[in-house]
């Protein structure tokens, strides 16, 4: 179990109805965050996870002190 702070942007923040939250996840990796987002907010796996401002493409080990952010594609212009 790991307790981490996650920041949300764009439509992710809209679906979560918050810009930041502290979550508890069983596994210390980014896939566990994606699973949480899918289960809790119905977010698709296509959202991007950033660990300490680096967007990761595969399951990455995280620590409770890491800065986690969730991004999604923006469409407007």
């Amino acid at each position, binding site marked *: 179990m790991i307790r981490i702070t996650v920041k949300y*942007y*764009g*439509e992710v923040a809209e679906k979560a109805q918050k810009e930041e939250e502290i979550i508890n996840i069983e596994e210390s990796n980014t896939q566990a965050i994606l699973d949480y987002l899918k289960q809790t907010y119905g977010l*698709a796996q*296509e959202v*991007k996870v*950033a660990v300490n*401002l*680096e*967007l990761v*493409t595969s399951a990455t080990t995280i620590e409770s002190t890491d800065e986690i*952010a969730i*991004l*999604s*594609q*923006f*469409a*407007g*212009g």
Partner: protein
Amino acid sequence: MKLQFYHNSQEVNMQKENRYIRQQALPQVGNKGQIKIRAASVLVIGCGGLGCAVLPYLVAAGIGKIGIVDGDIVSESNLHRQTLFSENDIGSLKVSVAADKLTAQNSEVIIQQIPKYLDVTNAISLFENYDIIVDATDRIPIRYLINDACVIADKPFVHAALFRFQIQVSVFNYQNGPTYRCLYPKPASSSQSCDSAGVLGTSVALGGALQANEVMKMILGIGTVLSGKVLLNDTLNNSSSQFTFRKRVEKPKSRTHFTNQHTINKVSFTEVESKESIFLDVRFPKEKPEIISDKTIGIPLSQLNSSLSKIPSDKEIYIFCQTGKRSEEAYKILQNQNYNTMYCLIENAAELKTLLKS
């Protein structure tokens, strides 16, 4: 008379010398930089909120040739953010109005109007005539088209996109750097444009100004270009972050692959596997044969734009009609409305009826 002419031409020369003096005064620009700016060419895709913010600054800076691609006309709902347009311009072609205003702003710049929407047939040939491409569009599917055409034509492109008060800016395919597909490999199943999410003119103007700034840096070869980084700016609380991402190594794509990928997706009914799918019948209700199933939604093509709320954006949509023509039109409407996972069925209603029976 001769003296008068000499005097006037001197004045013109003086004006030209003065015109760019403030940007030439920068040690990073100077005379050499101004020559680079004059020699550069930029193609702006989209003349909406971002385009109207990018274009005047590129024109003012004295970029040699600027192309504008947009098939749309000015409408009243554009005016709060698309500041190149006035009330009198409603109903006129955006590229035409913009070209007139921009030529009046700086007659030294060659403005090329392309009064069409970018598509699979014109993207690569257009891109080949410019140094830098600016993505000032407002739909996700078109961004993949721009990306893939830029990769084939070997051009960098400056991207910006908004969600309400937040802006993402990045530069893709710059000096063999990452592309849009490295950042977002697959299109989001749904995402809101400014039409549905709303936007302030000031937010989109900031996005366009950031894009123009990246263009200038690339032309001048100064500063750090946003390649391999996406800038996320929240204009509501003035915070910004830069997220880095890596290049995904992919096999080079051919022009044939590009054409196939960006032409309307067609599949056979027998290939439909997903349980999360719906069938969209765009015929009139009385057309035969009737296709009834719990997964079928009937919306005549003419009513599609006003009935989008009936079509779930999180499911795969398989469109059909009587001959296939209306399904292609419906596909384009949904594509423009940011539906990302839809297909035209190869089979039409009569064949589907037979397949459903079997």
